């Protein structure tokens, strides 16, 4: 995205900073959860990264609105790859879980979210290559 593609009327956004903050809070929460014992404290720690996620979502959507039409299409195609692939992964994992017992340490919801980023980046790469 170039500077010229951004409308000057839109507020400044920093989705990368929000993403890093969200990620840092998530891993900090996971680390702290190892030692916290009181249930309400554990739940509070689990919810702690949510404000940073809301910040990220707000900046990401604002950033999308500031992109030019081709870049918006590229982002749409990236999400169109990532969303169904993640859905298939969750559904397949659910079926496998019904079929055989899976260890929560190997496969659980906390292992799935990184795949969303991998699928999104793969979709982004494919879409960018298509319009190069």
């Amino acid at each position, binding site marked *: 995205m*170039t500077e*010229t*593609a951004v409308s000057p009327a839109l507020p400044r956004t920093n989705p990368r900073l929000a993403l890093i903050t969200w990620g840092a809070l998530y891993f900090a929460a996971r680390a702290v959860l190892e030692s916290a014992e009181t249930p309400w404290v554990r739940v509070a720690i689990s919810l702690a990264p949510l404000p940073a996620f809301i910040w990220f979502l707000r900046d990401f959507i604002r950033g999308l609105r500031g992109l*030019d039409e*081709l*870049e918006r*299409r590229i982002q749409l195609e990236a999400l169109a790859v990532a969303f169904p692939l993640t859905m298939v992964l969750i559904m397949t994992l659910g079926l496998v879980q019904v079929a055989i017992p899976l260890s929560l340490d190997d496969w659980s919801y906390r292992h799935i979210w990184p795949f969303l980023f991998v699928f999104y980046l793969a979709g982004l790469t494919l879409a960018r290559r298509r*319009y*190069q």
Partner: protein
Amino acid sequence: MKNRLKVLRAGKNWSQADLANALSVSRQTINAIETEKYDPSLPLAMKMARLFGEPVEQIFELES
């Protein structure tokens, strides 16, 4: 959709970046339109037509 954007741009001696600046889009968008990998929206096509002083149908042609 075929287009004459590259020819028109060359006629004005503009780079892709110059045209992108004039239209408030990225250089990648101009390149994708010129190489016919991407068809612009109607507002962008009309902006181009206004910029080059030609009707939209003189710049873009629907392939049969």
